[in-house]
């Protein structure tokens, strides 16, 4: 069979144009919802255009027309065969109160693994600090230089300080902390692509630093100062890094696919939306933590009593635990 391309185009072109128009509407407005009749029409036009492309490829040589039909079929294909739910208009409140905590709970095992790796690192740091006084100098990075000296001396300096060391640079210090911590979190997630090895190393290393610094202050009898300094921002910052590690482990699990029969692309597709949700949530937590660290954590007694700082940290922790464990709970049960 040989087709007459002109006649063929004249008959079919209105349908191609109709399909193109419908696709433009669907693509340009994420909130656009097809009626049943429109969905049926889209499906019909897609099938008809696919058939036209098939005919053209088999019975004729029209490169431009073929490219045009290929692009139409490709666009319609992505709309018709897409099985993921369409992204509706973004609702920040629903996302924050429902989607984020639900997503966190959906991958809770990865979170506990992230916690366990960090605890092992912390124990290692504690062990190193207890048995080797020089471990602190050897392991702590440059940005922790203020913790390299004697903790008792630092506490004395902080408590007797006559002037505000952070006066005129609180906002920039806060921005620096936010940027640094968010970068570390993204790395923790992205390193999941190394089959989780990079994420594990990063979590372990963070644990070591935590163990070293904590043990150093406790051994020097400055536990109250440590809690007053660490809790206000740490109860948000440390869980945020753990959650970023959770995202990295989720990615690694999808990559490895233990006991799964789905293809790699299917496994990665399943978790990509969750990873985005988690990492945006982590970034929000770290913005808060950066703000608190610059504007509250660096002020000590007598300017800000330790009891107030510790109580504030405890309240934050309770709210965080309740948020992650309870928020959006009823909705998730109802969805199930």
């Amino acid at each position: 069979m040989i087709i007459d391309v002109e006649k063929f185009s004249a008959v079919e072109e209105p349908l191609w144009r109709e399909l193109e128009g419908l696709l433009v509407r669907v693509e340009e407005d994420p909130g656009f919802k097809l009626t049943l009749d429109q969905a049926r029409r889209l499906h019909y036009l897609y099938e008809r255009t696919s058939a036209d492309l098939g005919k053209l490829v088999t019975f004729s040589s029209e490169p431009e027309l073929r490219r045009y039909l290929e692009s139409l079929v490709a666009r319609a294909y992505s709309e018709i065969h897409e099985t993921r739910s369409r992204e509706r208009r973004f609702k920040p409140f629903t996302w924050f109160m429902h989607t984020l905590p639900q997503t966190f709970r959906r991958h809770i095992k990865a979170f506990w693994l992230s916690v366990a790796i960090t605890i092992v690192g912390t124990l290692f740091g504690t062990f190193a600090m207890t048995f080797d006084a020089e471990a602190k100098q050897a392991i702590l990075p440059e940005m922790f230089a203020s913790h390299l000296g004697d903790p008792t001396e630092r506490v004395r300096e902080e408590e007797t300080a006559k002037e505000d060391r952070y006066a005129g640079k609180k906002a920039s210090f806060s921005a620096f902390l936010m940027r640094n911590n968010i970068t570390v979190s993204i790395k923790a997630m992205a390193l999941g692509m190394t089959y989780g090895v990079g994420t594990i190393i990063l979590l372990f290393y963070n644990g070591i630093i935590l163990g070293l610094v904590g043990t150093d202050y406790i051994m020097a009898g400055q536990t109250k100062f440590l809690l007053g300094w660490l809790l206000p921002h740490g109860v948000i910052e440390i869980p945020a890094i753990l959650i970023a590690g959770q995202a990295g482990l989720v990615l690694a699990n999808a990559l490895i696919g233990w006991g799964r029969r789905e293809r790699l692309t299917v496994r990665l597709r399943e978790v990509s939306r969750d990873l985005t949700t988690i990492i945006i949530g982590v970034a929000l937590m770290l913005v808060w933590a950066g703000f608190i660290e610059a504007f509250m954590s660096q002020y000590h007694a007598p300017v800000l009593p330790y009891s107030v700082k510790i109580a504030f940290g405890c309240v934050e922790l309770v709210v965080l635990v309740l948020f992650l464990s309870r928020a959006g709970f009823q909705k998730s049960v109802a969805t199930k």
Partner: protein
Amino acid sequence: MKTTTLQIKTPEGIVFSQTLASPMARFLAFMLDLLCIGALLTAIQLLMRFAMIINPDIAAAAGMLLYFVVTLGYSIVMEWWWRGQTIGKRVLKLRVVDAEGMRLEFNQVVIRNLLRMVDLLPAFYVVGGLSAFVSRKAQRLGDIAANTVVIRIPKIFQPDLEQLLPGKFNSLRAYPHLEARLHQRVSPAEASVALQAIMRRDEFEPAARVQLFSELAAHFKGKVEFPAEATEGIADEQYVRNVADVLYRTDARKKTREAATA
């Protein structure tokens, strides 16, 4: 096996293909994007200089955060806003698409851009470059995680046929059934070769030109055999020109037929 095209077969049995972008084109697009990011950062820096006069601390904080947001968010915002394109990709006619032909989602754009941090390791995109080199679909790690590929948008070529194939008599037009057979048997790639040869005929050395058109004419004569009176006395170059005219200028047939009817 490594491939240069992404082929997708629909459940209806239709295959459509898209050409994957080469690493060099992607690198050039990235360099252009770096220039754009640099320009944005310079603008922010200038703005912050003025803000410093009002409040140095707030200005420094805003500058630091804006710097971070622009560096990290430029590609995310552009690719989401322009459906898989940044300025660099748009200039080089590249686009990020879903690797299975599905709709490109926001989370895919976020993941592929955040994972750039791993692709950049240890420096100068070594990990990403190696991954793209090894991967069957030329994907860096971010693309693999997000299930995306970067394709080249073909430039739809619209030659000026009136200039190229002026309204001279085309003896092949007298045989519509053979014209139709030519359409059926010649692939788009072959048609494109004929057209390109005609367009670039003046660039060849005389001997090479004669040889090229001789080979092309023999090739197309082998596809469809026109009666001797249609091809007699026609040079090989003219024959190829007539073939390109038949393949590309479909409206001419209409005119010829209308003239014949009149």
